[in-house]
């Protein structure tokens, strides 16, 4: 990489300069070998700045300069993944979504607009679960009925898709048998006509059995499965999915090497355009920086040509609610939890959006509105007009 070359030039220059003046260099002569290696470590700054002109001149006129847009070249492309199937395609959905296809980092609009807008899906659970009050208040009356819950999300809150989580199948919760869980999938497929994503309980053994039943009842609908991971018997489940019309989310816990490993394993069974990846995101204050950076690195690597990472990215933004600040009662100074919660979820979602995520799993109606609004502003919005803000400095504000 270019950065590394520059680093070495910089390191070498510093080394040369310091070498000239032995008393500086040799102050600490007991050199550890790993210290020596450090100097050529990649990722060290690229600063080789030119001196700033200090001479004072009498300037009477503006010195004109043209701003040239950045020059960049990206060689990789994210695969396009299609979710859902309409009647003519063998399913019963009203519409389908294509996501991915990017050839640029997220929201470099000066170079081009992303080919497919991100998709916002809302979470629905197959049993009444504990949810923060500010979410629960919107779904209280439908939480015992996943089909009605899904309808509420689509009809009232404009969800593009539904993420159905079969949490009750967890051996530690209700241990619902796969065939029974699959019935809920059928009910939801009938209740709403948007494409469906179905998640398990996270138990790597049970999920394999649940997923098999789920894809059987959803045959032809090209649902999204959430998710396959390295703890599962992939030779069993991925083999089973080989010839099914289903798209897979490959989940790895904030680790790019594992993301590559899982994708490569899945390539043995399914084509690339049936894989989306979830590199894991955490909420503000709860590891957001790890999730953000892994996601950003995954996308940049994909665009630089890493063929193991060229997949659309799914982001479990609902994780934002794990942050206590999103739902506990705090001193009144910090405002009501009813507004802190959606703020947490919205900003966590925007962080993933700017890192390159394509598919968003979310919960609170206000966060979803905010995400959709920002996406619209960025993809369809007009150019800023100076007169709209020129006088902000002197404006009397409310």
């Amino acid at each position, binding site marked *: 990489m270019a950065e590394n070359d520059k680093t070495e030039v910089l390191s070498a220059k510093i080394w040369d300069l310091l070498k000239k003046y032995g008393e500086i260099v040799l102050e600490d002569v007991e050199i550890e070998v790993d210290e020596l290696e450090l100097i050529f470590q990649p990722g060290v700054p*690229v600063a080789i700045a030119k001196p700033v002109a200090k001479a004072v001149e009498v300037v009477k006129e503006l010195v004109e300069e043209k*701003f040239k847009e950045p020059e960049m070249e990206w060689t990789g492309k994210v695969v396009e993944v299609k979710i859902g199937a309409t009647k003519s395609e063998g399913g019963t959905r009203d519409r389908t979504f294509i996501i991915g296809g990017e050839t640029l980092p997220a929201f470099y609009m000066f170079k081009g607009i992303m080919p497919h807008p991100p998709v916002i899906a809302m979470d629905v659970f197959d049993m009444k679960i504990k949810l923060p009050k500010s979410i629960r208040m919107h779904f209280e009356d439908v939480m015992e009925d996943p089909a009605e819950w899904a309808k509420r999300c689509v009809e009232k809150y404009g969800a593009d898709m539904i993420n159905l989580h079969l949490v009750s199948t967890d051996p530690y919760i209700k241990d619902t048998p796969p065939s029974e869980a699959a019935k809920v999938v059928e009910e939801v497929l009938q209740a709403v006509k948007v494409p469906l994503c179905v998640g398990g309980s996270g138990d790597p053994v049970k999920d394999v059995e649940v997923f098999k039943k789920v894809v059987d009842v959803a045959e032809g609908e090209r649902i999204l499965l959430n998710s396959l991971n390295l703890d599962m018997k992939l030779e069993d489940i991925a083999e089973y999915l080989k010839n099914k019309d289903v798209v897979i989310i490959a989940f790895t816990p904030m680790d790019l090497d594992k993301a590559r490993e899982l994708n490569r394993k899945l390539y043995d069974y399914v084509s690339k355009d049936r894989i989306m990846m979830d590199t894991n995101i955490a909420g503000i204050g709860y590891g957001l920086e790890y999730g953000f950076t892994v996601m950003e690195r995954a996308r940049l690597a994909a665009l630089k040509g890493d063929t193991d990472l060229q997949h659309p990215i799914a982001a479990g933004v609902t994780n934002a609610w794990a942050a206590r600040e999103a739902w506990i009662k705090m001193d009144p100074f910090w405002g009501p939890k009813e507004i802190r919660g959606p703020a947490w979820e919205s900003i966590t979602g925007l962080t993933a959006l700017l890192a390159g995520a394509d598919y968003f799993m979310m919960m609170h109606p206000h966060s979803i509105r905010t995400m959709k609004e920002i996406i619209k502003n960025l993809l369809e919005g007009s*150019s800023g*007009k100076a007169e*709209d803000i020129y006088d902000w400095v002197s404006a009397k504000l*409310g």
Partner: protein
Amino acid sequence: MAFAVKLVNMETKLELCTPLLEEAKYKKSYEQLKEMLTPPVREVELRSDKKVVKIGGEYVLHRHELTYINPPPIAIDVDDTMSKEELIKRINFAESFKYTYIGRELTLDLIAVRSVSNDPEAFKKTVNFVASNTSLPLVLCTLNPKVMEAGVSALPNGKPLLYAATKDNWMKMADIALKNKLPLAIFSPGDLDMLVSLAKTLLKMGISEIALDPGTFVGFSGLRTTIDAFTMLRWKACNEDYDLAGWPLIGTPITAWKMIDGDSQTKAWWEMITASVLIIRYADLLIMHSLEGWVYLPLVMLRFNIYTDPRKPVAVEPGLRIIGNPNEMSPVMLTGNFALTYYIVSGDIEAGKVDCYLLLADTEGIAVECAVPGRKLLPDNVAEILKSSGIEKKVKHRILIIPGKAARLAGDIEDATGWRVLVGPLDSKDIPKFIEEKWKPESIKKLMES
């Protein structure tokens, strides 16, 4: 050699090598080294009598390429038509804002004084009043040079940022900045050619510190322009060595209060959202208007997260922590060594006045939630820490309470350790209740015998 390594990794400062500064024969080397180590985004320092705030100083576009350096300070605005009570209220908000997160205090940083009256005397008076009632450095905001001059004259000490030079006022603003040796911001909304032309002009005039505001447009009419401008400017500075873009970028989410229709809560919401986007997309200073704790809480935490050095995991030492005054029958609880996990869990236990032993397994600084699927919390490691911590000598029972989020590992931990496992609550705030209900002599006995 060790010093050179640290220098390249940004872990020390060149000036700490004193012979370079003290001896004349090294002057040239010092200058060469300094130039080489100058970040592509230059650092500008703002000062009050009591505080220093640095902006810019960035080396990289993406944090994983090294680390971000200076978290963008947030300035709360006041204006010269506000009453003294109003000014004090806003200053106090900025001064007293404090949130403790994993042992660090997150704060607001600056006061931006705006001239709404456009009257030099009124501005001077307000600047004077604000400066004598705050410890925070200031940003003086007016596009009228006469007003700016009056404001600057009220601040004999300190180093505020002057906001701003524009295509219309640059010559006079530059004179004020030069005369007083103060950093000058350039405001050129929606016009990058003008922005860099002004930058070039001011630098040629001899101004040594500038900052760039390409305009913060909020919502449908221009957010896109703003994100593009910030991204392009930072790209040009970091990846193309374009000097004129290599200065701190100023974001003004305060414009939401002009551009967004609706009640004040709606305006505050979009101000917060815009600020969050700008924290991620390279802003080095933010000027804001809301006076709501909920607006700034997620922002200061987001800022802390994004500006955390990715080369250093936020972990605490694994091992045994003693909370309160536990005895040989007190509970033993397990968690990971992610700093945040430790601070929250120990905080909750302390708040609930539970005397216990807390074992921190080495999860490589990863939260339990991710450590379980990520195989960073392994039964064998738990067995190891039970032995190495000496806990076996401290308690008579052999019951380990594990986090609810690690329930899946209960059986494997029992097998690996020979201890009985009790699955604790999903959230540590429920620990006191859990202990009260489950940790009773008869239930301990039952557990040990089963």
